């Protein structure tokens, strides 16, 4: 055990306070009985009940979920393909340019991405709605997936694929049967990253959404402009809970997988002396 130190304890408290006090206040006020956000009037779950009656919020939540699942799935497929080609293609002239162009949207201001997508959709006459949001989210989250997957592919032993070819696989079979199962953890974390990015995106969604479809962040933002309501607090608390549960589950699952693997390796070493 390390010795207790006042300096460490203080800095830890300050750091966590800075990070979490806003959220704790939000969660507390979501259980406030009063309609006035800043006045505490006792504990109540009234606003959660009202939230479930609010058709507009429920619709927005449903749209957000559909957009997140669809866009992160498409982005994962495209991003994995891009990463695979960039890592495998070897050296050719313009390679740096190409890989730079895949990663450029990472640093592009969201406002510009949103605006250019808006212009494109208007230009080709695509009505703004759930489809345009999915397309827009796919566009910007694809490069995140590509970064995650390509960092895994760089350390991937190429001879595994060659062995698959050698044993009679076509190049596509080699990818499906050998490469994909091995890089699956990176692909899954790329998907999760794209999913969370899509869930909380406000800027790009507000450029590309239309009257037929609104996502939750847009709904919350526009509702807050008319004044913070306890309902919004309740909704935000639910979102925090969902994200927390997801993150804890994901880290628990991956931790258990690595612990199991280590145990197996130790057992193997013991068995063979």
């Amino acid at each position, binding site marked *: 055990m390390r010795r207790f130190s006042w300096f460490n304890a203080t800095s830890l408290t300050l750091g966590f306070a800075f990070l979490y006090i806003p959220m704790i206040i939000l969660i507390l006020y979501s259980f406030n009985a009063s309609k006035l956000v800043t006045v505490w009037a006792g504990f109540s779950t009234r606003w959660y009940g009202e939230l479930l009656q609010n058709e507009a919020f429920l619709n927005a939540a449903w749209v957000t979920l559909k957009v997140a699942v669809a866009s992160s799935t498409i982005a994962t497929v495209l991003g994995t393909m891009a990463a695979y080609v960039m890592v495998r293609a070897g050296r050719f002239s313009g390679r740096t340019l190409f890989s730079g162009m895949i990663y450029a949207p990472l640093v592009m201001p969201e406002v510009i991405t949103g605006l250019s997508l808006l212009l494109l959709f208007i230009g080709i006459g695509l009505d703004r709605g759930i489809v345009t949001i999915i397309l827009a989210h796919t566009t910007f989250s694809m490069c995140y997936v590509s970064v995650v997957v390509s960092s895994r592919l760089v350390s991937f032993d190429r001879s*595994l694929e*060659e062995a*698959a*070819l050698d044993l*009679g696989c076509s190049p596509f079979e080699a990818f499906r049967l050998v490469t994909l199962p091995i890089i699956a953890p990176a692909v899954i974390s790329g998907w999760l990253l794209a999913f969370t990015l899509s869930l909380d995106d406000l800027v790009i969604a507000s450029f590309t959404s239309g009257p037929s479809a609104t996502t939750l962040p847009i709904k919350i933002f526009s509702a807050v402009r008319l004044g913070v309501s306890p309902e919004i607090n309740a909704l935000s608390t639910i979102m925090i809970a969902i994200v927390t549960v997801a993150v804890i589950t994901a880290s628990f699952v991956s931790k258990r997988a690595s612990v199991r693997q280590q145990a197996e390796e130790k057992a193997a*070493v013991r068995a063979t002396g």
Partner: protein
Amino acid sequence: MTEPVFAPWDDPNEKPLIEFKNVTKRFGDFTAIDDLTLDIYEREFFALLGPSGCGKTTMMRMLAGFETITEGTILLSGKNIARVPPNRRAVNMMFQSYALFPHLTVWDNIAFGLKREKLPKDQIEARVQEMLKLTRLEKFSKRKPHQISGGQRQRVALARSLAKAPKLLLLDEPLGALDKKLRQDTQFELMDIQEKTGTTFVIVTHDQEEAMTVASRVAVMDEGRLIQVATPAGIYEMPNTVYVADFIGDVNIIEGHGTKTGDGYDVTFAEGQPALHAKTDAQLGEAARCYLAIRPEKVTISAERPDGAVNVVQGTIHDIAYLGNLSTYHVELPTGQILKAQAANTRRLSRRSFTWEDKVWLSWTDTAAVVLER
């Protein structure tokens, strides 16, 4: 009746399994394989031996189909394989890293190639069992590659590459990752399996001892060219260049000037030293500059001047390398040259006859040394 010696390379009627015909491979400006011609026969255990970067791995990868050929042709059973992709070649490869699929069990790794052929289930089952038995892995069939030892992984890789019963098996530094003791055991195991299955093996290695142990023929390579192709004994006893003599085993190289006398050459190498005589059929060129290559174990070391020896020199012991079964004596001649002599330690250490700074005589017969032009 004696059993016929396995030497298809000496039989003009024998059809080679693999024919390299003037094969050249370039990577940009770099020539990895330089106009190489070579025949490899069925059931051979053929070793490609050379330092790293000599092109041996490139040759193997061209056979497997992972590298294209810049010029020339490679025939497998008489058919040009240039346009055949790796997955359609009756050639399997065992990779240096083993390249076992980490997400599959030992059983599934071995069955992987068979499943691609869409064989019926019971046939796959039977073949995998056969392979597990051959490589003594029955107990580990349900394990994943990270749950077994290095030696077992090596055997899984071998079983997987043999499962499809290829015409030709390529082994890329197959024992490089094993420690010395295990490597020696595995070498014999490999030879055993090669004999049992009758598959043609081509092995790439930089370990000359390994090549000598396992191979029926060895090709010594340097800078994309074949320097010598011969049986292990041929390579060791009759190297064709100083490079080969030096690469395989330990050797004394004496540079000198040769004059034709009787059945061989007299080589003068330093003033005040007697000429050294070596029997040879070789004819030296005009310059008559030549090298004598003498293996240390063919040099006899003695305290007294031996009677009737053809080649005798005197020197002082400079260094002794004690290897347990053998000792190598580094003997300094009056000219400053160091000659190595090897003697078996048939006596216990306390009774050993030579020590540092002793004056000794070195002698060898007229057939011990090989005369080389370069």
